[in-house]
């Protein structure tokens, strides 16, 4: 039995999808595709799986930490942080606008609660998460560190430096997640630069691998992540390969890489919102 019923989490996911669509539409820029595809994961983490302190502190001692390495899916991150109470929901209206704390890509620079490191230039988040996990070890803080990367992001070499380091140092308080949607800006990952046999690649690097086939089903996401949690403290880092669909939840965005970084127009927004009814109240 979960803290929140699956039904409640699904309602949050639906509102997060609305937030994403409205934010990206309002500034006519941003990345809806990957954001929509990771709604179940971030809602599951922040509303069910992570142990979080009530008040935000960058150091995050005594709580689980989450790092978003693929910073371009900031809309889903901002929506979930606001809905989880880190900052006012009304602030979502400032996304990507001048003088906003909600920059195009997440940053600590404007002091937005919930963000612990800037991301956007890809490939850096896993290293940062490993450092934070090392600090938790030194501080004898028995909480977990989560990090999400895009699958296209795995083309960055630094990821594999970090992968090697994490297994060598038995970073078993670390759960990395890959948004395995098979798409990137220029097309399918298989056409741009093949990722190959990802489960075996990570296993060969000394990681334990959990595959979640239905990454856009809240129940499956939570079950998969709970399985990953049960495998911590066993002398190896954990990789969750989360199969998702870019643009999930909006019929005309699904099954294509074309909505990676394109905003819907007025008519498209109306259609997309009709498919995702308001549940918790729009910002």
């Amino acid at each position, binding site marked *: 039995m979960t803290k929140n019923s699956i039904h409640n989490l699904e309602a949050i996911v639906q509102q997060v999808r609305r937030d994403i669509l409205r934010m990206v539409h309002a500034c006519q820029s941003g990345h809806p595709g990957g954001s929509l595809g990771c709604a179940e994961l971030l809602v599951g983490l922040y509303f069910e799986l992570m142990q979080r302190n009530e008040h935000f502190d*960058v*150091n*995050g*001692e005594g709580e689980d*930490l989450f790092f978003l390495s693929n910073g371009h899916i900031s809309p889903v991150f901002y929506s979930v942080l606001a809905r989880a109470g880190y900052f006012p929901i009304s602030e979502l209206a400032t996304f990507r606008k001048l003088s906003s704390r909600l920059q195009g890509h997440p*940053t*600590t*620079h404007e002091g937005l609660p919930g963000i*612990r*490191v*800037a*991301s*956007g*230039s890809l*490939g*850096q*988040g*896993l*290293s*940062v*998460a*490993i*450092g*934070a*996990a*090392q*600090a*938790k070890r*030194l*501080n004898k*803080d028995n909480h977990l560190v989560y990090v999400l990367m895009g699958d296209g992001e795995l083309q960055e*070499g*630094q990821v594999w*430096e*970090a992968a*090697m*380091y994490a297994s*060598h*140092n038995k970073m078993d308080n670390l759960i990395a997640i890959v948004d395995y949607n098979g798409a990137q800006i220029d097309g399918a990952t298989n056409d741009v630069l093949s990722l190959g046999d990802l489960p075996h690649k990570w296993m060969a690097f000394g990681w334990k691998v959990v595959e979640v086939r239905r990454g856009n089903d809240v129940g499956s996401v939570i079950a998969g992540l709970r399985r990953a949690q049960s495998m911590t403290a066993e002398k190896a880092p954990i990789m969750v390969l989360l199969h998702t669909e870019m643009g999930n939840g909006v019929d005309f965005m699904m099954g294509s890489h074309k909505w990676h970084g394109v905003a819907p127009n007025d008519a498209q927004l109306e259609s997309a919102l009709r498919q995702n009814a308001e549940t918790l109240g729009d910002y």
Partner: protein
Amino acid sequence: MKKYTYSESKDTRSGFGAGLLEAARQNKNVVALCADLVGSLKMNDFIKAYPDRFFQIGIAEANMMGIAAGLTIGGKIPFTGTFANFSTGRVYDQIRQSIVYSDKNVKIAASHAGLTLGEDGATHQILEDIGLMKMLPGMTVINPCDYNQTKAATIAVAKHQGPVYLRFGRPIVPVFTAEDQEFVIGKAVLLNSGVDVTIIATGHLVWEAIRAGEELEKLGIDAEIINIHTIKPLDKEAVLASIEKTGCVVTAEEHNRIGGLGDSIAQLLTKQMPVPQEYVAVDDSFGESGTPRELMDKYGLNADAIVASVLRVLKRKQLK
């Protein structure tokens, strides 16, 4: 000319090693990372004393910068260690995004900076690192001149909140500053008061500037000599006060003429006090293999070059 003497010569990187050990003794949050160059960075004493606070990263500098950024989340004060070339150009974007833009309290300890790395040649001799680092908003850039000052600087940067680039080197150079000196980040050190010309030097060129001052005295020229160990933030007041008195300046550094200390001084003077300036620096080129001494002589980074530049700048001052 004030008399400067020394009883021993040491490498500045050993000053870093001693300073790191002392900083770690003072604060349990000080930790260190190294990318497979423990001996070169003189980290062995630290590792022996605090094995749990050392992280061997392997030959993976980008990962090292990211892990250092992460360690600050949890209150650690990480010092990264590798050659200056691999501490800057190789990992510029990691430093920019994960450390400086993210306001992380990381200390980038960069050894073997400049030509004096020597025989390994230009692949390892970075002459652009000061420029790269000082362009990052919020970065502090420090280049101490001898063993004692590097040790004091290391202890000081551990107490400073914010990202720091700490640059030092490999060659054995005279230890002429005080062992118990107070190191104040951003504060220039006046080495000699004079009225004819201001010589502003950093790092290994500070000792050369003192030697140049002695030569100039024989020629009847009274040089003011300033050690700028902190290139950013620059001690503008000290620089302007000196140049208001002397009316001309020679800058000296083991770095490319473009983007280094000389450019920082020129930018300040252009706006506030335009005077003739000469650069002692590498003239927009890469280095090459050779002994440190041979290289410094060939590329014009020594006391003779400073004297020649002073004579040139004095001529320009007279014409003015």
